[in-house]
């Protein structure tokens, strides 16, 4: 063990140590933590891991480390916090090259100095570039800007055998070679360890307005959302927030529309959206300069059950309805929040019994699947997580297994955390 630790330390400038319980991944405590500061050091650490046949999980800030299934085994956590910083912000090209361990807030503050941004809404303070790429969360502005997969244009990563590879590049338009960035994005760290990423950026819009309306039932919510999505006002986001327990008499759902652009443009578009929302709301729509408190945050905390529901855009009302029904039927307190793009997050209190969570998820899957969507359990307390099917049906699973076997034959990375036990 001492020899192994010393090999790891040698690989990353003496930044390796025995793990403590705080370093656990989904309840599994590793033996060591190594903190490389560069792609080269990360590769060296992984070569040591391969030599000693260690199971490895990469960690950014750890904000989503408990998401997915518990790993079957973890010997080594590779902590990427030292592999941090913006390498190059080419503002004239609207491109940034950044190391994986960089916190998103730090990245955004560098970009803001040039009135630019990575058009990604991070819900979890402290989250890093690499950890976000690994899990591929999404926020309100995915409606207009897409998700991290759409913003990532180049990636450098280390394979489980310690070989460094890159794909994409530093220009937005590039079709040379396979788009490995998309495979790594949302792979839960199971294919390779991302060390550097290149993103396309957007100019920060000079003005914004948020138009909000209240609605009392799923049909009204869906109608309101659709009227804006189908308009020519080009909303950056159309979000729905529906806390648990609010019934039809309470007018419990909020539909909020974010418009970004020039001062003149935003003012005119805001008026149009207010008119669109007028007939669907339970009161007059309001226009505010700032987003509401709940904006861009998950409707669940770290100790709760977090779900992600998807459906085709036209199925939004039915899915919301089904979710509310299922919650009522099973006596669960379900908080819904999501995008008119057909991606909704839902939260259940952590103390909800596993059987109830399972029943709600089953009902939601039945509804989501009839609208081409899926239900994934992102996070849950260990007892619940281990008792239910987190992913539901996964089309293409056989191809995914073959991909995993090619890239990481010993299943060294995050074993068991991802779909189908990958």
């Amino acid at each position, binding site marked *: 063990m001492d020899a192994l630790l010393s090999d790891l330390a040698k690989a990353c400038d003496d930044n390796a140590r025995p793990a403590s319980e705080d370093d656990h991944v989904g309840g599994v405590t590793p033996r060591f933590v190594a903190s490389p500061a560069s792609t080269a050091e990360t590769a060296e650490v992984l070569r040591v891991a391969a030599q000693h046949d260690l199971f490895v999980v990469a960690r950014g800030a750890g904000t989503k480390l408990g998401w997915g299934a518990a790993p079957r085994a973890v010997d080594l956590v590779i902590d990427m916090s030292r592999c941090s910083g913006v390498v190059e912000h080419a503002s*004239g*090209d*609207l491109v940034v090259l950044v190391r994986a361990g960089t916190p998103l807030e730090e990245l955004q503050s560098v970009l803001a100095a040039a*009135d630019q941004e990575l058009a990604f809404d991070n819900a979890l303070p402290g989250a890093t570039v690499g950890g976000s790429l690994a899990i*591929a969360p999404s926020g309100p502005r995915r409606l207009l800007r897409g*998700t991290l*997969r*759409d913003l990532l244009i180049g990636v450098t990563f280390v394979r489980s055998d310690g*070989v460094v*590879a*890159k*794909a994409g*590049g*530093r*220009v*937005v*338009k590039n*079709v*040379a*070679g*396979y*788009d*490995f960035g*998309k*495979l790594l*994005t*949302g*792979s839960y760290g199971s*294919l390779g360890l991302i060390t550097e990423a290149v993103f396309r950026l*957007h*100019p*920060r*819009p000079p003005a914004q307005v948020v138009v909000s309306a209240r609605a009392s039932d799923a049909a009204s919510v869906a109608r309101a959302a*659709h009227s804006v999505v189908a308009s*020519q006002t080009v909303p950056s986001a159309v979000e729905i927030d529906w806390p648990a327990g609010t019934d039809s008499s309470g007018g419990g759902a909020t539909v909020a529309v974010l418009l970004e652009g*020039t001062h003149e*443009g935003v003012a*005119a*578009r805001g008026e149009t959206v207010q008119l669109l929302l007028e007939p669907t709301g339970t009161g007059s729509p309001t226009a505010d300069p700032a987003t509401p408190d709940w904006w861009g945050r998950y409707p669940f905390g770290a100790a709760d059950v977090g779900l992600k529901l998807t459906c*085709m*855009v*036209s*199925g939004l009302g039915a899915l919301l309805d089904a979710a509310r029904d299922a919650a009522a039927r099973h006596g669960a307190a379900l908080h819904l929040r999501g995008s008119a793009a*057909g*991606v909704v997050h839902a939260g259940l209190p952590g103390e909800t019994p596993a059987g109830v969570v399972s029943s709600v998820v089953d009902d939601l899957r039945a509804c989501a699947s009839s609208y*081409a969507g*899926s239900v994934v359990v992102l996070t849950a307390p260990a007892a619940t997580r281990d008792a239910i099917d987190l*992913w*539901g049906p996964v*089309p*293409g*699973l*056989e*191809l995914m297994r*073959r991909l995993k076997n*090619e*890239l990481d034959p010993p299943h060294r990375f995050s074993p068991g955390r*991802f*779909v*189908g036990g990958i």
Partner: protein
Amino acid sequence: MTTNGTIHALAARLRGVLDEGAVITDRAQLRTYECDGLTYYKVVPALVVLPRTTEQVAAVVQGCLASGVPYVARGSGTGLSGGALPHAEGVLIVMSQMREILDVDIASERAVVQPGVINLNVTRAAAPHGYYYAPDPSSQQICSIGGNLAENSGGAHCLKYGFTTNHVTGVELVAPDGEVVRLGGKALDPPGYDLLGAIVGSEGTLGIATEVTVRLMRAPEHVRTLLAAFPTTDEAGAAVSAIIAAGVLPAAIEMMDALAIEAAEYAVQCGYPGGAGAVLIVELDGPHAEVETQFEQVEAHCRDAKAFEIRIAADEAERALFWKGRKSAFAAVGRISPDYIVQDGVIPRTALPGVLRRIAALSDRGIRTDGSPGVRVANVFHAGDGNLHPLVLFDESVPGEAQLAEEVSGAILDLCIEHGGSITGEHGVGFDKMKYMPRMFTDDDLDTMQMLRCAFDPRGLANPGKVFPTPRLCGEVPGRHKGAHPLAQAGVADVF
């Protein structure tokens, strides 16, 4: 090596599965499929099939698998990288018979189409509802959605709206193991690896799409287009930088240089301002108030950058005329030069002025130091995202010209790589550019990418001899002939 007997047996097998006349073995007919849009390379396929259903495509792939015969899928055959160049001992699977638009679901903002559907027809189907399909390659009147998916096609408006990969949400795929798999659909973010993201742009090496679900977008409320003429490409490049630096994201910014303008004028009489060393076409779209505000800024930036004439499209007819010159530029160059090479390199936008000057120097002097004359290079490009389309003009009948053009063309790609760019922005690597891949990627990069290929196609039968210059042996089947392209084997590819 595939034998004639193998092909005969396969043809017989497929005749039992495909429609009457859908299995072509007649040499004269086969010859009509010998190239795609990059007509310089020609290979007559051993067999051509024209399936009409997913089951038929699967049967063809299974047949090829059973007999170890390589295959190449082809859409409309408009590709410019030789990606659909047939295999001499293989089957060419022509997807153009599968051309039904299956579903236009406006409420879900999606269309479900067969792969042979023409790009523009998706927009035509959606237009009555006020929607359109955003990716608009210049060949959109004839290119197919399946081909677009294989190449991750772009177009003039991808600066703002992204590429095919940002607009495909689902695919039904006949994987190289002959199985039919559905990935994604009308909803977003299916669980598991983003295989769809890897398949789009994989140039037919990871399977054959038999059904594609695409995003439909709401048509913009307002569109404004201007044409600005500049003394040289330097000033036009400065205008582009100023527009982007001001935080304006136009739907498109296109540039043409003097030679490209001359060609377009000759071919389609687009009436661009005389004496221009460069023209820019800038188009803004979106909500009325946004477009009007930003359009004023764009005009001002063009003036500040010394545009000597600015025309603003008064109506759709004038806008179409601006675009006609641009969209016909490739074909137009054929009118002023017997032969030409289209390149597709990408550079960071800020490197534009410097790179254009170096291309001009290459064009004036050639890359040789023996005093031989250079070749003419016409520049047409997507200036907003740095995607160059230099057209290197030559006359094959003049000894040495083709070789010189090829050298200049390669030197331009080297310039792109030197500036941190790419060898291809939207045309694909295909057969044409795979020899440049090692200049952009390390052996480890390419080896890693091919692990994906091995996962999908361990026997290496799906469009072999494309994209990667050195095929990787996949673990399970050691020592197999990996189907390096016969042209490459014969050394023809580098002769040009």
